[in-house]
């Protein structure tokens, strides 16, 4: 095999994630559990936000945060791969995509469920955040479809990196244009409870849920990355066997 096998040397990642991923799973589960328990049973409901349905916030807000953060992470990983060609960066980008898409879809679904009683509609075209997140989902889906259509992992890495970088550069513009679009149509009462106006009772459960989801997300990324590393190793071994070396 010579020097080619030296290209991927993710030993340190495997060693690190071997204990870090379980730790993240455990901490994430505890924090999400605590956040949900607080959110569902302890904090008072807010009638102005639709009554009990506002408790979906403890999933919705972390999902929204992860939707944004995961696309940024994927774009950064792609950029890293494009510049330094470190295989681990590509493995990370590949692992983030389906998870990011899942949390993005979760954000849209919970937002829709929350929107029905508060806005009277499952889908609010005038809400800039909903629209931006929808386009984020499309960006994720396009990225995954493109990678899947390439006939080798090297090509998938290159094509994916180009698209993720183009997408990443476009995200601010998309966000800005959607904000402008919706500000023209602002006749509905957009929920503004997130942010500084948030009641203090919601703040800690929300923060802890957000942290918990992030840890869970990180753990899942590590798990998928480990699976990918082992898959590539197995493919390498198989290729070596077939070559009779």
């Amino acid at each position, binding site marked *: 095999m010579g020097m080619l096998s030296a290209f991927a040397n993710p030993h340190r990642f495997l060693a690190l994630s071997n204990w870090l991923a379980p730790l993240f799973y455990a901490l994430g589960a505890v924090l999400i559990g605590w956040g949900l328990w607080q959110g569902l049973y302890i904090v008072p409901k807010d009638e102005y936000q639709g009554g009990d349905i506002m408790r979906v916030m403890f999933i919705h807000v972390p999902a929204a945060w992860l939707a944004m953060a995961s696309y940024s992470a994927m774009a950064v990983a792609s950029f890293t791969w494009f510049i330094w060609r470190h295989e681990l960066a590509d493995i990370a980008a590949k692992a983030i995509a389906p998870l990011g898409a899942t949390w993005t879809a979760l954000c849209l679904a919970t937002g829709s469920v929350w929107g029905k009683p508060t806005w009277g509609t499952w889908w609010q075209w005038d809400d800039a955040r909903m629209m931006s997140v929808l386009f984020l989902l499309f960006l994720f889906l396009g990225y995954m479809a493109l990678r899947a259509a390439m006939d080798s992992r*090297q090509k998938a890495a290159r094509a994916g990196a180009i698209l993720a970088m183009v997408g990443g550069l476009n995200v601010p513009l998309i966000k800005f244009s959607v904000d402008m679009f919706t500000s023209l149509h602002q006749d509905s009462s957009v929920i503004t409870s997130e942010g500084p106006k948030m009641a203090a009772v919601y703040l800690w459960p929300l923060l802890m849920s957000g942290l918990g989801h992030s840890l869970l997300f990180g753990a899942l990324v590590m798990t998928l990355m480990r699976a990918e590393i082992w898959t590539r190793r197995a493919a390498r071994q198989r290729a070596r066997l077939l070559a009779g070396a």
Partner: protein
Amino acid sequence: MQLGQRVYSGDDVQLLTASGLGILRGERVLFEGVSLTVAPGEAMVLRGPNGAGKTTLLRMLAGLTRPEAGRVNRGAALHWVGHRDGLKPNETPRTHLKLWAKAWGADADVDAILNDMGLSRPADVAARYLSAGQRRRAALARLMLETRPVWLLDEPFTALDAEGRDRVLAMVAGHRQGGGAVVAAVHGDAGFAASREMVL
């Protein structure tokens, strides 16, 4: 162009060098540790069974495929004739050659080249009506548009009849006499006396 013209002088000059080339296809190592040098007047023939990587190596030398290991030094301009001819379905041999002469800034007598390649008759027929051999001739005719020291040819004889084959052999011989070099992937008998063979 004049075939006898000397395009590169000094036999110690390498027109093309490659060292330690390697590439993966998926996880399979297609080849690795491939090194070669091409000097003026040389003809190197790449051999090997289907799928051994002849085309891939040629594309690496041409700068089309990125090697995963190793490097290629191109010391001179090169012509590339891949196994796809590069003609558009609605292009005629004449418009094809004129287009590339213009794109390359080459001052070539297209009519004479068409004549040389036995393409005078179908010179104005759209490529979609041409036979595979005629399209091949049009692609090889690009070699005559501009003098470039290195020719990289992928299966140049594909679809050519005996007469076309002889023509290409004569072109190659003339090119080598003028100090040019050829690297070709060839199936079967190459016909031209290769100064070197490489088996992949």
